[in-house]
Every structure is written in C-alpha cells, then in structure tokens.
C-alpha cells in the first residue's frame, strides 16, 4: 500500500540538457478532456482479471522526448525529436501519448526528464483523437 501522496515523493532533479532540448520542441498532442482526471491520478493502476501483465503499472505523468531514427525498411521516418506525455510505467514498459501513429516493433529512444535515455520498442498504438495516439512500448535496455 502506498503511504505518500505524489507531492510528498522525492523527485529527481531536472536535467539541464533535457530541459534545453525540451524547450526547443512544440507539444502538439491533444489530451482528450475525459482523460484529464486520469492524468491527475497517482499510485498503482487497477488490474483486470483477464490481464496478462506480469508486473503492476503505476501512474506516471511526465513529459519526455521521443527520438526517432529509421525504424522499418518500408517506412520513411526522418530522424527527429518529439514531445510525448507519459501516462503509466511498469518494470517492463511505459505508456505515453504521442502526436502521430507508431507501428509495432519500431525501435526508438525515450529521453526522460531525469536525463536517462532508454531504448524502447513499440508494442501497441491506438488512436485517441486526430492529434493523440496512446502508445505502449517495452524497454529494451537503459543507457
């Protein structure tokens, strides 16, 4: 059981390089109004009886930077950086909102405000609205 509120939990100091990079990017994600409440929550997410997840997920609202490289042979992705908004995290992966559709098995780098960069692989992507896609990725390895 969690015994602290979000604002009582120690937060890692912000990383200057991340902040600088983030300041140069535009956030084009449109968060659906009905999701605002979800974004305010903290703690563990409820689980469903038919869920196949091995590890619990925790609410994790934060900004992050997604770094593209060429991902799939037939998909012309240009290298670039994009703002994403994280939703929840588990030991194996993380969910975030992104402004465009990603495809399964695409590999990218996720840069978190603490300065940590991690390689991720897209597991699922579902459209929320015209400027918002709910993306689930799994961690490959951390740098």
């Amino acid at each position, binding site marked *: 059981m969690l015994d602290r509120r979000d604002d009582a939990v120690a937060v890692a100091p912000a990383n200057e390089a991340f902040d600088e990079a983030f300041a140069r990017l535009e956030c084009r994600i449109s968060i659906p109004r009905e999701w605002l409440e979800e974004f305010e929550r903290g703690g563990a997410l409820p689980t469903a009886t*038919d869920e196949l997840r091995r590890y619990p997920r925790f609410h994790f609202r934060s900004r992050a930077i997604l770094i593209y490289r060429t991902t*799939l*042979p*037939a*998909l*012309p992705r240009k290298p670039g950086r994009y703002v994403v908004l994280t939703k929840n995290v588990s030991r194996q992966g993380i969910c975030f909102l992104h402004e465009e*559709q990603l*495809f*399964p*098995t695409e590999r990218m780098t996720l840069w978190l405000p603490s300065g940590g960069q991690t390689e991720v692989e897209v597991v*699922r*992507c*579902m*459209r929320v609205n015209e400027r918002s*896609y709910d993306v689930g990725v799994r961690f490959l390895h951390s740098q």
Partner: protein
Amino acid sequence: MAQSTCDDTFVAATPDCPELIPVPLTALDSASGIAVDLYVKWDPAAAPVLYREHHLPAGPEEFERLAAQGIHTVYIPAGGVDEYHRYLRRNLPTILHDASLPPERRYEFLSETGRGLLQEAFRHKSTDTVVNTAGQLAEQMAGMLAGSQIISLDLFRVLRHDYHTFTHSFNVASFALALAKALGISDEEELGKVALAGLLHDLGKLNVPHAILNKRGPLTHAERAVVQRHPYDGFVQLCHRDDLTWGQLMMVYQHHERIDGRGYPARIGGDEIHHLARLCAVVDVFEAISSVRPYRRALPVPQALEFINKQAGTHLDEEMVRCWTAVMTP
C-alpha cells in the same frame, strides 16, 4: 467428418469409399495424367463411386465426355492431394500459356494450383517460404488478369468458396486485383504487389487455433481477442523485410480498420487508413460473406453486394464499395 453438402467440402469416408476431396473437372483435362483414383457422383444425391483407378490412363477426350454429361466435379481420395498438387504444378506452365483455352479456364487452373501452393507454404510456417511462394503466384495472377478481359463475375464463378484460410487468401488476392484494375491501376508490377499483399493479408491467422477459427457458436471475449490479433501478428512477421512496400504492409495491418474509426488494431479511420487497406477491406468482407463458413451459409452475390453497400461509409470506403458493386453487377 461432416457429410458433404456442397462441392467445396469434404465427403465423408465410408467403409467402401475413402475420405474424398472435390476437384473441378477442368483442372484435369490436360495431356499429362494424374496418378490418383477418381470418383464421380452420377446422382447429385448419391455418394461418389469409383470411376477410374490411378493406374489406368485417361485422356482429355474422356473428361470432355464427362463434362458433356453434366459432370463438372470429380473426387479424389484425401491421401492423393499431394499427387494432385504435383500434377497441377507440372501442368501449370502449359495451361497458362495455352491460348486455345479461355482465360477463365486458365485462371481456374491457376486458382487450383495456387491454393495447393499456399496450403503447402502455410504449412511450412517459414515466412520466407510463404512470401516467395506467394510472390511467384502473385506474378502469375497479375500476368493473367492485367491484360485479360475476364470479368469479375466470371472470376467469382471459377473460384472455390470454402472456408480454408488459403482459399480465402487466394480469393481476396484475386478480387483485390480486379478492384485495383477497376480503380485504374494498370501496371502489371503494381497489380502484382496488390495480389501478393492479398495473398498475405491473413498471414497472422496461422497463429489462431483451428478450434477458434472453425467454432460454430459465438466467440467469447478472449477468443475474439485472439482472432483480432491477426493483423498485428501478420504485420510483425513481415514488417522487417525489405522486399515489401508500405502499401502491402498496410493491407496486412489495416484491413480490419473501419472508416468510422471503430475497427482494429489501431482504431484509425477515414483517409488515415491506407488506400490499399481500404481496398482490401471491401473485398475481404465480400469474400467472407460470399463463402461458406462453419457457422453460416454463403450469401449469393446480390445479397453480398447489398450487405457491403449497407456498410459503405461506416465500415467500408464508399467509393471502393461503389466500384466493386459496379464490376460485380452483370
């Protein structure tokens, strides 16, 4: 084993008669013989009886006589299927280039051969084998249909309409070719790409257990989730290859998306769905409802067209449905 009710299903084994598989008579009347026993149903209500043992020669004139008597389907033992497929492959180049045969007849032969080739390739479970086999088949399909005057209704008549994944794949590829042609794609290479993606569009279904695919009753929530994974699984199997285009991959990944955004796997809608995936969705639904399924009968063409027209604008692309309706209406 279920008792046969139509020419596209297996025939029950009896003490005097092995399990039989129907084959179109037109697939057999070439110069090269086939070394399997042949059975014929003289009376539509009766069981097939042995017509010719495998070691006895039979020529084209014999099959012509059968056709003249109204026999268009013969039966072979299930154990002779591999020999039947070898026979088809041996004769394919000769038949495809035989200008004396009508194009529909040649396409029917290609369909029979193609189904067998796909069935074998799918059994291998090697993506390379499936893609290479499907690629060769797609080239032949596009080569035949690109310059020919075969109309889509004739195409429908020469195809089988059972519920096997390889039959469905071959039919969807054939219809996708016909619709692409009607929409103005005339380049044979482009048509070949459409045909190849049509053959591969349900590749992910090979991961779905037969018990779920052939279930007669309604699917449970969990079973439905397994079935709905197939576009994702097919895409993941193919997306790292450098010999497929993005359009082909989208035919695999997006053919169950809906125009209104209520499909799967990504719930995208409208123009966000690749045009080849929208094309594939129309012929996929049409093929599915005009073929026999374990849980329902096939709809005749007019009712199948009526059904897809009701889905136009919500599930399916309106313009593509209109075009498909036009080419399938006599």
